[in-house]
């Protein structure tokens, strides 16, 4: 009924009707309509969605950036009154490059009474993630140079920088004086003096504990030197702890690019770094690149006389 083309005009009524009838798994039916062309349909879909998980919350956060003001307001109201709340996710979403979404989040942060402590925890988590990405990149240096290894190292370094940028963006948005924004520009500058001035200014602006752990990531250090500081402050997963565990950790990163490239790297290194039960799980992945790469590893293993034929 929802998919029938002739029903397009009455879709909002159908969605509403399904809600009134108490249809099971309504979220799954309504979610695809959040990106529908017609505003009335998007509005109707959003109205019947119940935010009961982080995934739903993420989708509704994006609706605060909708071109239609009524939809933005409805999204805000839905988040405010949702049975599932996650202030950390809201703070993290401040990094979404969309002015309308950020404005919506700030309104919500005010009404939800989010404290500086949440921002500090967010920053601390981002720093920890940065060090973990750095540890991943440094660990991968031990492998033979292949395109997948090079791309993975680049990917982790980019993710590390992105986390630091996230912190600075969020701090800048929280800073009415605008000084953090100037510091942020300085840190991204190719001029060494501007960078050094920005670091000095940053020390005066942010929490001392935060500055201390952030410094090795914003100053130009050797990766190993920075990582040593990270290891002192956080419990990080490294290659030398246990190889198979390290690869499992990369594969469960949650980012399909990391998973696909890691599988590629395992394949390039003749699949000796991972339990095949772990790889088999990826055979049924929704992502075609992950599926294909997992199958290749299984085939490679079988060709080498392993027991898992895939």
């Amino acid at each position, binding site marked *: 009924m929802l998919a029938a083309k002739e029903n397009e005009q009455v879709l909002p009524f159908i969605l509403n009707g399904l809600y009134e009838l108490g249809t099971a798994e309504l979220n799954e039916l309504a979610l695809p309509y959040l990106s529908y062309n017609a505003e009335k349909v998007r509005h109707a879909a959003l109205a019947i969605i119940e935010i009961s998980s982080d995934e739903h919350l993420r989708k509704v956060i994006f609706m605060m950036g909708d071109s239609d003001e009524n939809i933005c307001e409805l999204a805000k109201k839905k988040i405010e009154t949702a049975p599932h709340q996650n202030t950390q996710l809201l703070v993290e979403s401040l990094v979404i490059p969309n002015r309308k979404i950020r404005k919506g989040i700030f309104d919500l942060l005010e009404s939800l009474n989010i404290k500086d402590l949440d921002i500090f925890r967010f920053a601390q988590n981002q720093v920890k993630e940065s060090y973990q990405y750095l540890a991943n990149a440094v660990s991968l240096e031990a492998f033979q140079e292949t395109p997948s290894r090079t791309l993975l190292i*680049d990917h982790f370094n*980019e993710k590390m920088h992105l986390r630091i940028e996230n912190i600075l963006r969020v701090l800048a948005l929280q800073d009415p004086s605008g000084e953090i924004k100037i510091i942020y520009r300085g840190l991204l500058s190719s001029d060494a003096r501007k960078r050094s001035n920005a670091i000095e200014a940053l020390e005066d602006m942010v929490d001392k504990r935060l500055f201390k752990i952030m410094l090795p990531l914003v100053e130009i250090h050797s990766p190993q030197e920075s990582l040593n500081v990270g290891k002192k402050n956080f419990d990080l997963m490294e290659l030398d702890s246990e190889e198979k565990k390290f690869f499992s950790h990369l594969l469960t990163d949650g980012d399909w*690019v990391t998973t696909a*490239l890691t599988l590629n790297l395992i394949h390039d290194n003749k699949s000796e770094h991972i339990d095949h039960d772990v790889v088999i799980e990826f055979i049924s992945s929704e992502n075609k*690149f992950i599926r294909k*790469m997992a199958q290749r590893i299984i085939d490679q293993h079988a060709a080498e006389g392993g027991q898992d034929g895939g």
Partner: protein
Amino acid sequence: MQRKEDRMADDVTISDKIMLLKGIEIFESLSVSELAAIASVVEEIDCTPGEVIIQEGTVGDTMYLVVKGEVSVIKDLGEINEIEIDRIKAGDYFGEMALFEDAVRSVSIRIEEACRFMVLHKQEFKELVREYPQIALEICKVLSGRIRNLHTKIEKREFCNAEI
């Protein structure tokens, strides 16, 4: 014209695709995530020699990256004054301006050696840019560089003309 054969190439991994995309000037400074996003929407097609995949004067909406093979770039294809102006080989690309504008193709492209392409369509590209606005910004940098180079060439030419 020979029939185009659509099929998924089994031997091109995500790393290969990303590395190929990284070799394209307009994509070279993108992050691995952004390149992976593009790699996940490109289509792989195989073409046979003699096939004309771009016809001069038609509106194009695709960009081609040559994974293997060779094509010729022809002006006035089939006309008495037909002229081959270039050859494009593996690792190179063409048709990228079709992603940004609706202008007609200025040349024809004919397959000379059996080719495999990675094809990026305008619609997919537009959707990617919505999700990764940084892609548009990086491309602007490259296009702005091209304009600067053209200006330099024009200035040099004007200088030479003045000398004469």
